[in-house]
């Protein structure tokens, strides 16, 4: 399509479907318009066209123009779903980058501790998985050149993945109306060669995200209860991420990012079996970026692999 670069692995495939549908629609519109105009001219009032006879048997015609579109629709659906599943299933080796949206900016945290606002630097040719959440209302992360968009919600992590295929700078938009400065909640995605990206990471390296989380773990007093030597009966957090946690209500939950987030912010929601519900909520004391650092720290204490949840 004119004007819009194809800068991700999806772009060409999405455009292929789009162009096919566009061509099919064009044929249908043209066909119906031609027939309509032909009838309108031929059977205009006063013309001498033959109007005798009436087609009483409509069934064949009706079935034709019911079943043919139906078959086409199912074909298009199948094609689209195939692509949809790819779009929604991040590969296990995708590099996670954390994104927190708030009115009206995008805050990005890399695993190495690099932070950016309204800009996202990514390497060429490597699958990237954005793990995103919002600090307030619903936002939506949209990069037209990549053909990707995903809403960012305040109560969960949503993810979005892509592999950039062309170096350059591309527009980033917020696509879900989020209040006064919605139109200004934009930025850019910078795609760099792996070598340039490595340099960029090096130049902007800070304390790693997990190390930041470790510091917070002490600062917010988490270690006071969750340290193995603490006197309080609290769950051990080693190998927690990625494990299956039995809950007090008898059910089980996979300790993914959302579980860890909720355990910090809304601890009463899912109480681990065998523990008193004494964990206080940190909702008013920790912001979403800090929660992400804490999660990174907990991930560093776990041998379980990164969970790439296809149910999201």
């Amino acid at each position, binding site marked *: *399509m004119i*004007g*819009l670069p194809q800068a991700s692995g999806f772009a060409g495939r*999405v455009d292929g479907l*789009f162009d096919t*549908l566009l061509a099919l*629609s064009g044929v*249908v*519109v043209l066909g*119906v318009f031609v*027939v*309509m105009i032909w*009838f*309108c001219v031929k*059977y205009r*009032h006063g013309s001498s066209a033959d*109007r*005798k*006879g009436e*087609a009483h048997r409509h069934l064949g*015609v*009706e079935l034709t*123009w019911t079943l043919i*579109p*139906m078959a086409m*629709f199912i074909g*298009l*659906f199948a*094609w*689209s*779903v195939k692509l*949809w599943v790819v779009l*929604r299933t991040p590969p296990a080796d995708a590099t996670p980058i954390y994104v927190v949206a708030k009115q009206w900016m995008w805050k990005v945290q890399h695993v190495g501790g690099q932070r950016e606002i309204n800009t996202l630097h990514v390497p060429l040719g490597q699958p990237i998985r954005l793990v995103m959440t919002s600090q*307030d*209302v*619903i936002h*939506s992360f949209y990069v*037209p*050149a990549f*053909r*990707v*968009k995903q*809403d960012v*919600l*305040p*109560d969960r992590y949503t993810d979005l993945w892509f592999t950039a295929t062309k170096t350059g700078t591309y*527009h980033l*938009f917020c*696509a879900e*109306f*989020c*209040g*006064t*400065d*919605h*139109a200004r909640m934009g930025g850019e995605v910078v795609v760099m060669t792996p070598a340039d990206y490595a340099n960029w990471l090096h130049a902007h390296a800070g304390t790693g995200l997990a190390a930041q989380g470790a510091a917070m773990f002490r600062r917010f007093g988490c270690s006071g209860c969750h340290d193995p030597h603490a006197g309080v009966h609290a769950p051990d957090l080693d190998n927690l991420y990625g494990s299956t946690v039995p809950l007090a209500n008898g059910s089980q939950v996979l300790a993914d990012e959302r579980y860890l987030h909720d355990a910090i912010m*809304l601890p009463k*929601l899912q109480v681990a079996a065998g523990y008193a519900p004494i964990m206080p909520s940190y909702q008013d004391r920790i912001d979403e970026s800090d929660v992400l650092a804490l999660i990174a720290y907990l991930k560093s204490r776990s041998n379980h692999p990164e969970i790439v949840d296809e*149910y*999201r």
Partner: protein
Amino acid sequence: MSTAERIAPSYLEEGFSLRSWLGTRDHKRIAILYALGITFFFFLGGLAAALIRLELVTPAGDVLSAETYNKVFTFHGVVMVWFFLIPSIPATLGNFLLPLMIGARDMAFPRLNLFSWYLYIVGGLFTIACLLLGGVDTGWTFYTPFSTMFSNSNVMLAVVGVFVVGFSSIFTGLNFIVTIHTMRAPGMTWFRLPLFVWSMYAVALVMMLATPVLAMTLALIALERLFGVGIFDPALGGDPLLFQHFFWFYSHPAVYIMVLPAMGVVSELITAGVRRRIFGYKFMVWAIVGIAVVGFLVWGHHMFVSGQSMYAGIIFSILSFIIAVPSAIKVFNWTATLYKGDISFTAPLLYALGFVGLFMLGGLTGLFLAATALDVSLTDTYFVVAHFHYIMVGGSVMAYLGGIHYWWPKITGRLYSEAWARFAAILMFFGFNLTFFPQYVLGWEGMPRRYHEYLPQYQVLNVLSSAGATILAVSYLLPLGYLLWSLRHGARAGANPWNAQGLEWTTPSPPTLHNFEETPQVTGGPYAYEQP
């Protein structure tokens, strides 16, 4: 001149006092009351649209502040959806024509009918109060938690307005259903009903089943906003996506509340203009019913990127493709109705043909949005804005105006100027396409909707769209002018100026209070135009 045959005075001559109007139980007068309200809100909502298009002429946000812009598009949406589109055809043409078309004297519940109008007005007053007190900035969709915990505008007034007007819809739906079930003239069997009546029946069912969900959802917003009960806001333990499910469970069927009546109107207009039976009557009926039923099962296609699961996306995608089938059937049948017709290009037929063309473009672009992988790119961009304006403005408004022209002689007893009306219909078709076609391209090129400022690369298409909007505005003002002019200066209409079929044309123009002197006996199906 039909007064020669007339025994009783027309419904317009039954009383001239304000009280005879505001206290009327005559379905025809109630239809006129609605028409006044709807016209007022249409031009008010149109004014908001004009401000939006003016702002978007330049990339910078230089005419309105961001806050005002957000309030203006919210007002445009709320007014156009709930105070114009949803009541437009059902409450005016439906109210006026339903009893006439089935051979009844009035609606089943005339008092409830008037009460529905008062609810509409009360809802409208809340909405106007909301505007005067500073407006609301949530978008017509009231997405949570923005609407409940973050917006500082008059959310409650807007919510109450919509809540109240919803009951107007529910009662109108109830009235239609009971009327169609119980008051059909002898011989008026279900498969002899004009398609317009079928569309009113389907729409009444949708109104009754879907609108209560909206009322409930709005009540929950009020609970959360006023009392901090955690339903949608995660900070209170709520779920923001729950709101979207509730909202679209109503608002997607609401799209069919807006377009099914238009399909009904167009079927009447085409058969009268072409002087042929409708092609495939039963398929048309089942298509209406099919759309109404499946319309309840596709709401999740508004939420493909919302955080809804991938599998839900797949189910909603296939159902959305399937609902396109009955729409396609209708377009093909309307086209086939032209075959071997005796076609006079009157203004109503021009409006109807315009509807078919624009509805087809709107419907086909709906397939793009039903395809999940494409929707990821297209949702929340101008592509969606263009798509639903093709259906609702290109489709429903064209059909509404076509219907107003077609039945104008029946409603008012006067003939309007055909030349002006044809000119307006053609102008509207071109103005509409110039306004909204560029928005498809804008959307595909990535311009998000609800943007007060935009990147300079999108300017050319936005200027085209705004230019089209001025033409469109002229084409909407024209009918207002020549139709009002005809009330005083138009030639008097006979009972059946189009020489059309249908019970409504057997009554005098305008009809008498009780519509029919004697209960009509129906002996055949609709559209019994003579075939050579």
